[in-house]
């Protein structure tokens, strides 16, 4: 362990408008009226089943997108943050 926290960067770095996109895969699978029917079917699977499997792909694409857009740069200025910035 070295000096006390020399490399702490400012907080709030998790806040990004991109995070709102994650609401989509959270809410979409919960709206049963969107998929609770048997037609159209796909390769013999009723809509209820293939559409919910398709939501997995929606989840993967949104989390991948949000991850890429909010990824931290590995280098950059490091500003020591105040110790007293307690969360209320």
């Amino acid at each position, binding site marked *: 362990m070295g000096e006390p926290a020399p490399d702490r960067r400012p*907080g709030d770095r998790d806040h990004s408008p991109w995070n709102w996109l994650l609401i989509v895969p959270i809410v*979409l699978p919960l709206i049963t009226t969107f998929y609770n029917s048997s037609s159209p079917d796909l390769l013999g699977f009723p809509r*209820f*089943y293939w559409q*919910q*499997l398709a939501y997995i792909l929606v989840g*993967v694409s949104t*989390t991948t997108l949000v991850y890429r857009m909010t990824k931290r740069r590995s280098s950059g200025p490091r500003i020591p943050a105040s110790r007293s910035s*307690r*969360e209320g």
Partner: protein
Amino acid sequence: MWRDHLTEIIVFAVLFVGVSALGFVAAKWRRPDTMEHLDEWGLGGRNFGSWITWFLVGGDLYTAYTFVAVPALVFGAGAMGFFAVPYTVIIYPLFFLVLVRLWSVSHRHGLVTPADFVRTRFGSPTLALLVAITGIVATMPYIALQLVGIEAVLKTMGVTGESTVARHAPIIIAFAILAAYTYQSGLRAPALIAFVKDTLIYIVILVAVFWLPSQLGGWGAIFDAAQAKYDASPAASDGLLLNANNQLQYITLAFGSALALFLYPHSVTGVLASRNRDVIKRNMSALPAYSLLLGLLAMLGFAAIAAGVKPLPGANPGSVDTNTIVPVLFDKQFPDWFAGVAFAAIGIGALVPAAIMSIAAANLFTRNIYKEYLNREASPAQEAKVSKVASLVVKVGALLCIVLLDPQFSIDLQLIGGVIILQTLPSVALGLFTRWFHKGALIAGWAAGMGLGMWMLYQIANPATGRMHFAGSAFPLEKFGFDTKATIYVGFVAVLVNLVVAALATLVLRAGKVTDGPDGTVHDDYFVDEDSPRRGTDSEGEPVAVA
């Protein structure tokens, strides 16, 4: 008769023994300087990269019981059983937003369990103790369910007997081996075994999904057969689609289960073992590959209907064990040697989560009961030692759940487990975002949610099986005085009440100027990454930098 299944048994046994050997070797894997530290034994050195984390967390969240019970539910009820798919879609964005914060604060403060976090955040040993006990109690039956998964496979291979001892002997042996290598290797054992487990499971599922329809006339014919079965059944709640009365149950069960999942101590263990935030975030977009697997497996419940599978008899005369649906389907449709591989996949699939769960429960005991109340000066080596022993005790407890109680009862316990672990949501999950709640209010909310949840579960009867209480998690809304036949997931209602009570009590306690505990964390703690040094905590719970 087991003699008819000799090939399956040999393949199963060879794979099982091979994997166990791997479990013992795991102690030397990624060469720790010492295993005499809880970070090494209980969190694999907190240094797992993307691939290991993927296998570990995947092997942790998708258990043998999931692979056996979800298709069984679909076999019996149809659409309702498919709730597991939306549930496993929702969890990853939730994990993405919440667990990275938990990782950061745990990294900064050297936290090992969710109760450790609550202790630091709210400065209340009592609240932390409640969270720890809730976690241990909820995890035990979950471990027991892994045994239900192995037992379904053994039963299908004819490895069973009349007496209690004969019926459970193979499981006791399997669990003794598991206990031994977990004791020695800690979290490294399930992490290493997960590679084998998942490779086997992926092979089996892909073969099943393509091979079985070709044998049964295609997916169209399979769904037609299922439709015919549900049309003929007298039950009102089954069918290929949801009906007006079970949609709310479907939504709340999927959402409530997702919230419960990341509160389970074993999910936290898997996440805290990763090297940095990026590993977690990247995994949240890669892990849904398992959800696809789960969805395809769920639909094998329909394939079992089309193949005319009959579940094997249950423990009591006249009952059936629907958990045997998938094993019987494999036994019937696959060549013997491949059925053996499939059974090994399910059996080994039980070992990985059982190991992680027992480690997580043991860590809770060590950190939040032993260190907090029994030996405040415990050294890291003593902590590791206590955790090792506690992991054995937890496994024996889970084993007793299965051997002494009716396995059906273990399933009921797990149902209760989901409802009770949800009651830690305000302190653990919301605590990661806000310090607004008062520690006393969180305790009050926990008690209210727990009480209501237990009362609701007690009210649920199932006339079909003759059970009067704890017969499911679908609470009829008419019992609250609503004029409807719709049902709702108990855990969802209980956690809502918990939140309302916690919020109201916070307002009251703040108005009365009742002392709150000190917050041992600062704003920045929730964002730090691996390059940040760890801090300690002084005697007042105030954060200090580690020099």
